[in-house]
């Protein structure tokens, strides 16, 4: 085992029990984060990004079930951890920034109450020490007037500030891995840039592992070392950022990159036909096959094994397997 590996997700299958049946969302997701490495996960909405991230911390909703797979954190399987160990992991090792800061902060508790509660549970500190720690975290998140923020309810803060508070929460103590689940999706363009800059700056400074989940391809490209592309509960392509973006291999990745409008105003793509499949009855074989322009018979039957097309750049597509 590579000692450098911080987190390794192997063959993760996750489904949700609903009244209509089981929705098979994740189908064999794998992911590796090295110490201090910055990872990007891109994919459209509904591709299973958030489910993957929630599985790591085992905070899936009560109807979510991990059917198969392993998640190793420094060699320990998170999925087999006892509750106390899990709490320890959540308190000290991995933290998560949620997509929507408005819904992620309990509206009825002051920022300070929440932070103190978290710090006290994690570190067993005195009230004053805990408060000091919280204020420091807020200051680190570049919040003006941390005292006031500490004493505010979430609704009294702007969206950008709320997300900074979430960042502050995620940076309390010495975390080794920070998961940022679409941290800027609901923010305005200029604020987005600010928050993202802050986050990358902090991550770089502290040299922690970082999983940056996003739909914004540009933002991912600018900020991470390696990138995973997800489609319908599968990782279909991954590799060093530059390689994936400059030389996308999977038909989906190619199309996706074409779809992004360019500032240079080059010719516009026609988009990808169809939409993300229904997870109750997902397509057999490669889940992209109904939308793929290069679909072959075997695509409908088997899920393609990943192929390393260049160093560290893998793609799971039958087009390349044959070659």
């Amino acid at each position, binding site marked *: 085992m590579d000692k450098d590996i911080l987190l390794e997700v192997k063959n993760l299958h996750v489904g949700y029990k609903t009244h209509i049946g089981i929705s098979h969302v994740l189908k064999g997701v794998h992911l590796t984060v090295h110490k201090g490495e910055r990872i990007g996960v891109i994919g459209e909405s509904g591709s299973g990004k958030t489910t993957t991230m*929630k599985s790591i*911390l085992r*905070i899936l*909703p*009560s109807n979510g079930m991990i059917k198969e797979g392993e998640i190793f954190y420094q060699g320990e399987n998170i999925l087999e951890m006892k509750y106390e160990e899990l*709490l*320890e*992991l*959540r*308190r*000290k090792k991995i*933290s*998560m920034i*949620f*997509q*929507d800061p408005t*819904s*992620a*902060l*309990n*509206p*009825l*508790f002051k920022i300070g109450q*929440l932070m103190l*509660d*978290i710090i006290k*549970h*994690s570190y067993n500190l005195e009230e004053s020490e805990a408060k000091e720690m919280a204020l420091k975290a807020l200051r680190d998140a570049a919040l003006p007037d941390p005292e006031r923020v500490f004493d*505010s*309810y979430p*609704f*009294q803060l702007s969206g950008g500030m709320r997300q900074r508070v*979430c960042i502050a*929460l995620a940076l309390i103590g010495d975390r080794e891995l920070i998961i940022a689940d679409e941290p800027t999706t609901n923010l305005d363009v200029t604020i987005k840039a600010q928050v993202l800059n802050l986050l990358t700056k902090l991550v770089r400074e502290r040299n922690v592992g970082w999983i940056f989940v996003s739909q914004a391809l540009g933002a991912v490209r600018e900020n991470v070392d390696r990138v995973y592309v997800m489609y319908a509960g599968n990782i279909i392509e991954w590799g060093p950022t530059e390689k994936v973006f400059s030389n996308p291999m999977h038909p989906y990745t190619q199309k996706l990159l074409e779809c992004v409008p360019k500032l240079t105003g080059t010719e516009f793509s026609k988009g990808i036909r169809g939409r993300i499949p229904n997870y109750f009855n997902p397509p057999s074989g490669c889940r992209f096959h109904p939308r793929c322009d290069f679909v072959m018979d075997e695509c409908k039957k088997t899920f393609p094994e990943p192929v390393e097309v260049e160093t560290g750049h893998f793609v799971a597509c039958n087009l390349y397997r044959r070659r």
Partner: protein
Amino acid sequence: MFKYILVINVKSKIVRCVFKMRAIWKYVGKRVLYVIPTLIGLSIFIFILSRVLPGDPALMAAGPNAPKWVVEQIRHQLRLDKPLWEQYYYWLVDLFHGDLGYSIYTKRSVTVDVVEYLPASLQLIFLAALFEIGGALALGIISGRYAYKLPDNMVRVLAYIGISVPSFVWGLLFQLIFASLIPLFPSHGMYSYGTISPPRVTGFSLIDSLIAGQFDTFVDILWHMVLPAFALSLGAMAQDARIIRAGMVDTLQKDHVSLVRAYGIPERTIFSKYILKPSLVPAVTVMGMDIASLLGNAFMVEMIFQWPGFSRYGINVMLNKDINGIVAVVLVIGIIFAIANILVDVVVAYLDPRIGRRSA
């Protein structure tokens, strides 16, 4: 100079606190202003109805054998010989003097009746509310905590039964079972016979008996209150347990619960703090209104248990077409309802900081 700043710092905290209070008061004031026209409308509605609908209250007041001149005298006394608007005007003027008019049923001022009977009802409703809140919280939390599991299913079925069985049926059932078949509790009234009621100070017999040092009486009253209060509380209890459960199940799915969970807060704390409080906000609204509605259900329950309260008085004035009494009963209940409404809003505003104040 430094000293001054220090003082300001301390002060600012107090000021902020006061400001918060003031914001809530302002909010309450607004609600009161909103409620007043409604109450006036209500009084006009019921007043006109009581005067316009067929029936001769004066004749009824005079009693079966009274001569004509007595009837006329009462008609004059009740101002029934005046035009409607004038009657209402004088009624309103009297109201501001604290006079709700003459009751043809009790033969005295309705105000006196209200003062006499209302505390007994409020006292009963208070106990019922205690039962209701306690039961609803206990059942709701169990149900929410074990959502979709056996305890939850049991509570849900119980809640449906609780909601569906009318309070008067509960009353009769309890009376049948716990007073007649197994005589654990008294079947009616407020005191056991022979108990002399404590001297009236507040009108709330429980408090009065304590003031008078009659602990026996206190226990006696409480003992008489158990069955009616319980019968009264069951429907609302079931209703509120359901709301609390729904709130908890709903909150369970929220991102902010995922967040605290992701940061290693233990499940017990999550439930008792981060899930319970948000689920209580909608429950408090319903609970408050349910408690106020108990006054309505109390009509039947007080009748069954012969509780000497305002609702039984209400039934009696209604059955006797005591127009001033009816108007007063409706209005007083309207006022209590409005107060309950406002109280609920204040509690909700206290629980939910977003309501009522907003930073500019």
